[in-house]
C-alpha cells in the first residue's frame, strides 16, 4: 500500500517536474515567469492526440512529434510576443505571458470544444507485479521517459557549449552578451527545451489520465510553478525535486483522506517552504555585487 502510493506519487510528480523545468530555466535566464508555459503543455498533449488519431504514430514517434511541434511553438511565441518587450518593464512582459496563455486556451476551445477528449490507445496497459506490489506499464513508461529527459537535460546544460552559454547567461545576462555569447540564441534555445519538456509532459499525462482538454494547462501550470518555487526557482535539480515532492505530497494527502483539499496541499506546502526557506529547497540566496 505504501510503496504503491509512492509509485503513484512519483508518477504524478515526474509530470509536474517536466513542466517545472521549463519555468525554472526561463526564469533562470531572463527572470520571467512564463505563465503560458502550462498551455504549451496542453498544446503538446493535443498534438499527441492528433499524431495518434490522424497518423497512427507509435508512442515514441508521437512523443517526438509533440516535442518538435512545441519547440517551434515555444520559439515562435518567444520571438513574436516576448522578444520585442525584452527591454520593457518586467511587468509588461509578465502580463504578455498571461495574454498568450489565454490566447492558447481560447484557440484550442474554439478548435476542439471545451469537452475533454480521450487519448486514443497508443500504449498497451499491462499490470506489472513485483511481489505484492502492482503497478501499470504506463506508470513505468512515464517514470522512465521523464528520468531520461531529465538526464538528457542535465547533460546538455553541463557538457555542451550551448549549455555553458545558458549557465553564463543565467549568472549575468549582460556580461555574458559582452563576452560574445549570442544572447538571443541562448534564450531561443531555452524556450525550445522548456517547451519540448512540457510537450512530453502533456503527452504522458494525456496517456496516463486518458483525458486532454483546453484548460488542463491551468492547474498543471500552477502546480508546476509551485514545484519550481519549491525547489528554488532558477535551479534545475530543484525543479525536479520540487515536482517529485509535490506529487508525493498530493498523493499522500489524498491517501490520508484529504481529497477535498488536494489542490490546497500544493499551496500550503509552498507557503511553508517560503516561510522557512525563502529561496526554495535548493535555491541559493542571490548576491548582488555593487
Amino acid at each position, binding site marked *: *500500500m505504501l510503496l*504503491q*502510493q509512492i509509485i*503513484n*506519487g512519483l*508518477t*504524478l510528480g515526474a509530470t509536474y517536474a517536466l513542466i517545472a523545468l521549463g519555468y525554472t530555466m526561463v526564469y533562470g535566464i531572463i527572470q520571467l515567469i512564463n505563465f503560458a508555459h502550462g498551455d504549451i503543455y496542453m498544446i503538446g498533449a493535443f498534438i499527441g492526440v492528433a499524431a495518434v488519431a490522424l497518423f497512427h504514430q507509435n508512442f515514441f514517434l508521437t512523443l517526438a512529434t509533440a516535442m518538435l511541434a512545441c519547440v517551434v511553438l515555444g520559439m515562435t511565441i518567444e520571438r513574436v510576443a516576448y522578444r520585442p518587450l525584452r527591454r520593457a518593464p518586467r511587468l509588461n512582459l509578465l502580463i504578455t505571458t498571461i495574454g498568450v496563455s489565454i490566447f492558447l486556451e481560447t484557440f484550442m476551445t474554439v478548435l476542439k*470544444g*471545451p*469537452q*475533454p*477528449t*480521450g487519448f486514443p*490507445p497508443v500504449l498497451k*496497459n499491462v*499490470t506489472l*507485479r513485483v511481489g505484492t506490489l*502492482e*503497478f*501499470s506499464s*504506463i*506508470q513505468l513508461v512515464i517514470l522512465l521517459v521523464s528520468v531520461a529527459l531529465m538526464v538528457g537535460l542535465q547533460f546538455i546544460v553541463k557538457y555542451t557549449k550551448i549549455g555553458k552559454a545558458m549557465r553564463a547567461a543565467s549568472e549575468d545576462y549582460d556580461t555574458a552578451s559582452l563576452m560574445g555569447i549570442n544572447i538571443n540564441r541562448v534564450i531561443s534555445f531555452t524556450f525550445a527545451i522548456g517547451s519540448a519538456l512540457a510537450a512530453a509532459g502533456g503527452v504522458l*499525462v494525456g496517456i496516463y*489520465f*486518458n*483525458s486532454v482538454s483546453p484548460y*488542463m494547462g491551468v492547474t498543471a501550470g500552477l502546480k508546476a510553478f509551485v514545484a519550481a518555487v519549491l525547489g528554488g526557482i532558477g535551479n534545475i535539480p530543484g525543479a525536479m525535486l520540487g515536482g517529485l515532492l509535490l506529487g508525493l505530497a*498530493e*498523493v*499522500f494527502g*489524498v*491517501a490520508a*483522506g484529504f*481529497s*477535498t483539499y*488536494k489542490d490546497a496541499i500544493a499551496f500550503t506546502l509552498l507557503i511553508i517552504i517560503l516561510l522557512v526557506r525563502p529561496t526554495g529547497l535548493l535555491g541559493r540566496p542571490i548576491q548582488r555585487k555593487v
Partner: protein
Amino acid sequence: MKKYKVALVLLSMLLVIALVAGCGGKTGTSGDENKGGASGDTIKIGFMGALTGNEASYGIETLKGMKMAAEDLNKEGGVLGKKIEIVESDHGSKQTEAAAVVQKMISKDRVVAIVGDPTTGKTKLAAPICQQNKVVLLSAGAVGPGVVELGDYIFRDTLLDAVAAPAVTDYLVNKLGWKKVAIVTSTNNDYSVGLTKIFEEALAKHNAQIVDRESIQDGDQDFSAQVTRIKQARPDGIIFTGYYTEGGLFMKEVRKQGLDLKMAGGDGLLSPVLWKLGGDAVEGSMVYTGFAADPANAAPQTREFIKKYQAANDNKLPDMFSAQGYDAVMLLARAMKEANSTDPSKFKDALAKTRDYPGVSGTLTFLPNREPVKSPVYLLEVKNQQFSIKEALPTEVPKA
C-alpha cells in the same frame, strides 16, 4: 500627415455609423420586449442549461426535447390560442453564469416558466430567483434532495434518486451479490453528495457493508491514490455517485491498477462521454435512469416520441434528457390549459395536481409536496460501448 487626417475622418464616420446602427438595433429589441411574455401572442418558456462545457450533453438533449414539444403543440394551434416559444440560453456549465442567465430570462425575455437546469446544483441556484419573481421552474433533470422545498413555484419531472437508488440497491445486493461496497463521492458536486447519502441508507437497509469511502472532486484527473485504497478494501463493487467525465476516468484507473470491479451509479453517468474516456474499462458499468429508449416495450406515446426523434436526428435514439425536456414543456402546457391562464401563479396549482400523467419518459404523479414519483426505473449496462437495458425495476412510492 494628410493620410492620417483622411484616416481619422473615415474612422470617426465609421464610429458614427456604428453608433446609429447600435441605437437602431436597441429600439428594435425593446419594442419586442413589450410584446413578449404572456401578454403577447406567444408564450415564452425559457431553457436553462449548458450547451457548452462539462455538462453540455445534458443541456443539448433537454433543449432538443423541448423544441420537439413546442413544435408539436404549435402544430395543434398552440396553447390557449398562443404559440409556444422556447427562449434559449447557455450558462456554459458555470455556476457563476447560471444565476445571471436565469435573471436575464425573467427580466428581459419575460418568460412565464423555465425548464431546467438538468443538474441539481444549478437548479437549487435558480430556484430562489424564480420563486421570488413568481416564475415556474420545472427542472427536467435535477434528482438530488432539497429542490422542491425551495418554494411552491419549483417542480421537477424526473425520477428521483430517493425512489430509484433503493430499487437499484436491492438489485445490486440481492441479485448481483454485492455484500461489500466501496462508495466514491465527488465532494464539490451537490448531486453526488446527496446521492451518496441515499445509497448509504439503502445499503444499510439491505445489510450490505460499506468497506471504503473515497472522495474525489469534479475536474480531478488523478485517481491513483483513491483506487489504491479501494484495492486494499476488496469490495464486490463500486458505487460511483459523480458525473460521467470523472466516472470514465476513474474506471480507467481501476483497470490500470489491475482491479476487476464493476461500477454502478446514477444518471449522472449517463453520457457517451463515459466510454469515450473510459473505453473498455467501463464495459459492464451500470447506470440507472428514468427513461430508456426501448421501442419494443415502450408505451404508445413513448414509441411515437422515439420515432419522431429518430427521424429528426439521423436515427439516433433519444435519451432521458430529451424525453424529460419534452415532458416538461407538455406538462406546463397541460397545466396552462387546465388553469385557462398563462399566469404562473395560477397554472402552478394546476401543475401540482398532476396525477398519473402518461409522459414519454414514464408515468408521473406529483405527491402533495410536489415531488414526482415515476415508474419504472431502468438499469442500463454499458455493452460494446453502448447503453443497453439490463433490467426494468419497479419503484415504491416513498412516504411523503
